[in-house]
């Protein structure tokens, strides 16, 4: 086994955070004329697997949201390979490029290695290495650069909500959320309002759940606004492309861009961005007027069908009408509507994932869900599937009630109209909140009370929220920022205290149950001990709470009248307690360390053992995956295919083919919504027409198969596949403007600007610009990600849709200029 120099060097020591960056031009470059792609340093970091002794650990990938099952091969203490684990029905024996490149995340020389506290100006990225104890102390007591938690809570009189907690998606997000609950703030924000809020909610209120699409059995698939060949979602990506191209499943791709999904589709139709709602309404119109829908199903399972039908027909949402809006030919719309229903119920209008493309998105998802319902393809094989989820035992958290904690910082309408929810941000406030609305309100000073500190877990809002400038301002204004991350991200640069978590390969995470037609439970097992001084978040929380729990309780005791009262009430007679006893008793309710007493391994054991017994615990430790009867059901069918459940054991019609709404019906009409100012039924409105002035372009953003949002930009292996993102611009437009491949463009909007290279292509229309999200970080501590291309959120404007305040990512016009 060969271990490369750079990896060895990395394993030996650390690279000082502030000194990284800068490009060295080697003599080789001067002498040889090669355009050296490795100007930024040596990246030879692969390690050949050996034939000798090796241990294999079953774990789960965390390079993106999917959590595919992996088996790590460890040789001489080095992870040499990550292989797919065939046992997991969700990932079906595959690891995508990012999953394979997880090794590089583990051995990334730029990793955060020890706790740090800020010594320079905010955002400057100057930190001092400290011990964990010092870091915790700085969080509690502050330094000369920033105030501590104690001071803030003291000044805010124990208003726990003066701290914001935010997290990106992750298996240990739950652990962090436990801390948030125990801490007692009501300000929680997560990625939902930047990601999938509208689709989850749209399907939720309409059919009772964000169901999975059974692409394995569907015969007809409309995939609109989802790019499964590049935005990988399991098992859809694996199932979706094995039968397309005339091999049993017809795939219609609707996307303004010609994506890899389009390349794999049987038909691709370019749609004007943001007009999918008109497209679906027209499909619905055809199905209604030609009475192609499943009448029996509709009769039995629909609420408000007649109203909706009337609305669609009377509004004349004809394909001809839609053609003008969407740019899709009427005859194609007729054809698709008819074909879809002909294949029903083995037909899927794919729900999508990242959803808020435009302001009408919630209504779009509702219209999609209803359209799906019309086919009867709900809770059925080949259609949408609710599936089953395997139960897990409970792990106790702690949810003390702080009298002084204010409710969520949401702006109330000054003079709410009757029937209106009374919030100005948006109509409905979801669990994850509206990130943009929250941030903007914070900046504009429209907060009901002061929020002064924030905890960030596995989240990079600096990169991932539209209008980067405003996020930076927010981060600067926030007096105490604590970030728990693995990499010196752009967000970390704005932190006051940086707590380095170990990577996913160095920790056991909360055991998780994965629903679907083939449900299972999976567990991430630790592959290596954490390197450097990093720790899993659960241990970070343990250490932190041990430090802050008592001092914070002292503050509570001072300001919280309920607590004061309770402490004073020593009881009567037999029950009477000493003040000390009472103090201990009350403190127990506020003891933040309690949820973190047990190790993750113990917690997992408990959660599994209590339901499935000791064997299941062992199976999860050894194989990473468990479901009842796995030993009997699981069978390799060929080298590439496996059976997880026999056909009859699959959870196809768990709800008898019915929707899962409280009423048990598909909800076409939601009068309650109207009370909040939301259209009760999906309709098209004049205001949805988005115009792109001459000379400008509508900005689109999205995924690439080799990158995960902002999180993988510094991954040496992936970067090797794409050095930087490029702006897709229509080839003919580029020609007119004299723009050639690789020319630098400045893309600007009202929000800001970014510089990116041009990629003239026919894959995008003349009025749109696209670039892959996640590039162009500005943290100099990221050797390879630093300014590697254009940063979309520097230009995307902070528009939110009205229902959940989710980010409408594609409502921005930009200008381009050759630089």
């Amino acid at each position, binding site marked *: 086994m060969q271990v490369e120099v750079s990896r060895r060097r990395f394993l030996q020591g650390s690279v000082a955070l502030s000194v990284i960056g800068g490009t060295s031009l080697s003599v080789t470059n001067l002498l040889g004329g090669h355009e050296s792609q490795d100007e930024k340093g040596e990246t030879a970091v692969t390690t050949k697997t050996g034939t000798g002794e090796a241990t294999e650990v079953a774990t789960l990938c965390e390079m993106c949201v999917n959590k595919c099952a992996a088996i790590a091969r460890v040789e001489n203490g080095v992870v040499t*390979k990550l292989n797919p684990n065939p046992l997991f029905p969700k990932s079906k024996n595959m690891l995508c490029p990012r999953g394979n490149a997880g090794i590089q995340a583990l051995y990334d020389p730029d990793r955060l290695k020890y706790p740090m506290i800020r010594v320079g100006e905010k955002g400057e990225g100057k930190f001092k290495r400290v011990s964990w104890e010092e870091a915790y102390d700085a969080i509690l007591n502050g330094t000369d650069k920033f105030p501590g938690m104690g001071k803030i809570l003291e000044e805010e009189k124990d208003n726990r909500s003066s701290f914001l907690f935010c997290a990106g998606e992750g298996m240990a997000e739950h652990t962090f959320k436990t801390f948030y609950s125990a801490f007692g703030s009501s300000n929680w924000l997560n990625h939902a309002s930047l990601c999938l809020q509208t689709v989850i909610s749209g399907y939720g209120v309409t059919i009772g759940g964000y169901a999975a699409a059974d692409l394995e059995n569907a015969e007809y698939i409309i995939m609109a606004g989802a790019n499964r060949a590049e935005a990988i979602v399991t098992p859809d990506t694996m199932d979706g492309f094995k039968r397309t191209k005339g091999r049993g499943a017809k795939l219609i791709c609707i996307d303004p861009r010609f994506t890899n999904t389009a*390349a794999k589709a049987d038909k691709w139709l370019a749609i004007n961005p943001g007009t999918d709602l008109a497209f679906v309404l027209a499909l619905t119109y055809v199905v209604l007027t030609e009475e192609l829908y499943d009448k029996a199903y509709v009769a039995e399972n629909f609420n408000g069908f007649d109203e909706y039908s009337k609305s669609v027909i009377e509004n004349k949402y004809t394909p001809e009408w839609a053609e003008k809006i969407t740019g899709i030919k009427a005859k194609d719309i007729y054809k698709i509507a008819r074909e879809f229903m002909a294949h029903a119920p083995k037909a899927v209008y794919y729900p999508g994932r990242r959803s808020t493309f435009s302001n009408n998105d919630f209504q779009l998802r509702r219209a999609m869900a209803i359209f799906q319902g019309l086919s009867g393809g709900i809770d059925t094989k080949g259609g949408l599937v609710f599936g089953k989820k395997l139960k897990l035992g409970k792990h106790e958290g702690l949810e003390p009630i702080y009298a002084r904690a204010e409710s969520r910082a949401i702006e109330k309408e000054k003079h709410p109209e009757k029937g209106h929810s009374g919030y100005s941000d948006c109509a409905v406030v979801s669990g994850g909140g509206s990130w943009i609305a929250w941030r903007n309100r914070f900046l504009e000073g429209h907060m009901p009370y002061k929020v002064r500190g924030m905890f960030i877990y596995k989240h990079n809002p600096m990169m991932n929220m539209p209008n980067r400038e405003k996020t930076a301002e927010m981060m600067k204004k926030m007096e105490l920022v604590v970030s728990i991350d693995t990499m010196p991200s752009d967000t970390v640069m704005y932190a006051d205290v940086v707590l380095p978590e170990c990577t996913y390969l160095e920790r056991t995470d909360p055991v998780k149950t994965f629903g679907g037609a083939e449900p299972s439970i999976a567990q991430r097992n630790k592959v290596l001990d954490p390197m450097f001084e990093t720790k899993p978040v659960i241990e970070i929380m343990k250490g932190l709470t041990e430090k802050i729990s008592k001092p914070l309780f002292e503050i509570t005791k001072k300001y919280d009248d309920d607590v004061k009262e309770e402490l004073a009430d020593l009881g009567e007679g037999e029950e009477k307690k000493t003040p000390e006893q009472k103090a201990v008793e009350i403190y127990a309710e506020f003891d933040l360390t309690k949820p973190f007493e047990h190790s993750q391994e113990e917690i997992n054991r408990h959660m599994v053992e209590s339901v499935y017994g000791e064997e299941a615990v062992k199976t999860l430790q050894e194989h990473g995956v468990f479901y009842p009867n796995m030993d009997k059901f699981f069978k390799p069918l060929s080298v590439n295919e496996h059976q997880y459940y026999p056909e009859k054991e699959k959870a196809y019609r768990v709800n008898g083919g019915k929707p899962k709404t409280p009423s048990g019906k598909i909800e076409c009409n939601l009068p309650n919504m109207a009370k909040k100012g939301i259209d009760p039924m999906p309709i098209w409105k004049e205001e949805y027409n988005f115009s792109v002035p001459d000379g400008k372009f509508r900005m689109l953003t999205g995924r690439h198969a080799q990158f995960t949002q902002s999180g993988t930009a510094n991954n040496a292996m992936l970067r090797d596949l794409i050095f930087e993102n490029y702006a897709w611009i229509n080839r003919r437009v580029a020609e007119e403007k004299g723009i050639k491949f690789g020319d630098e463009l400045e893309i600007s909007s009202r929000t800001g600007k970014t510089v990116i290279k041009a990629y003239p292509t026919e894959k995008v229309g003349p009025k749109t610009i696209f670039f892959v999200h996640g590039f162009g970080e500005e943290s100099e501590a990221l050797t390879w990600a630093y300014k590697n291309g254009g940063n979309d959120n520097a230009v995307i404007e902070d528009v939110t849709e009205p229902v959940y305040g989710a980010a409408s990512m594609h409502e921005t016009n930009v200008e381009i200029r050759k630089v």
Partner: protein
Amino acid sequence: MANYGMALDYKNCINCKACEVACKEENGVLLGADKHRIWVGANDVKGEWPLLDIASAAFLPSQCQHCEEAPCQEVCPTNATYYNEHGVVLVDAEKCILCSYCMNACPYDARYVDDRTMTVDKCTFCTDTRLARGETTTACQNTCPTKVRTFGDLDDYDSEISELLRTREHFSLKENLGTKPKLFYLT
């Protein structure tokens, strides 16, 4: 002795490049745009937006074809390139003098120079890693999300690959050159 080959259900390929990354991690292939044993080719899509020719955008995964009549082997002056007992075309780094003749002779552009040994390298069918450990799949096959690849023994009538080649139409690349490739593209 086995006679290894690979069948590719190439219409499944989504150009994700998991195979390329898996190959690099498994076999310790150097990073660098030109240092790869396996690749997926794509053409610029034909037509003008929005009327594009989907078929012109097919993805073609490829790697060393392990030719039965390998030009790279024929031209090698020191026999550094050789067939092993399983018909796999390999390079013995000890003997390679880096004359680069094979790189010019391989019609599939399957070879590159490994900067550590400064010798020519290429796909080995994971002979010295996975196969050496007794595993039966290659890294690229194993990881592929859409299961494009099937690796196996062409001489074994009962192997999956033999079955596939018997039952499905297939073609090989640059067949006219007479190299007798052992990568088969299923149609």
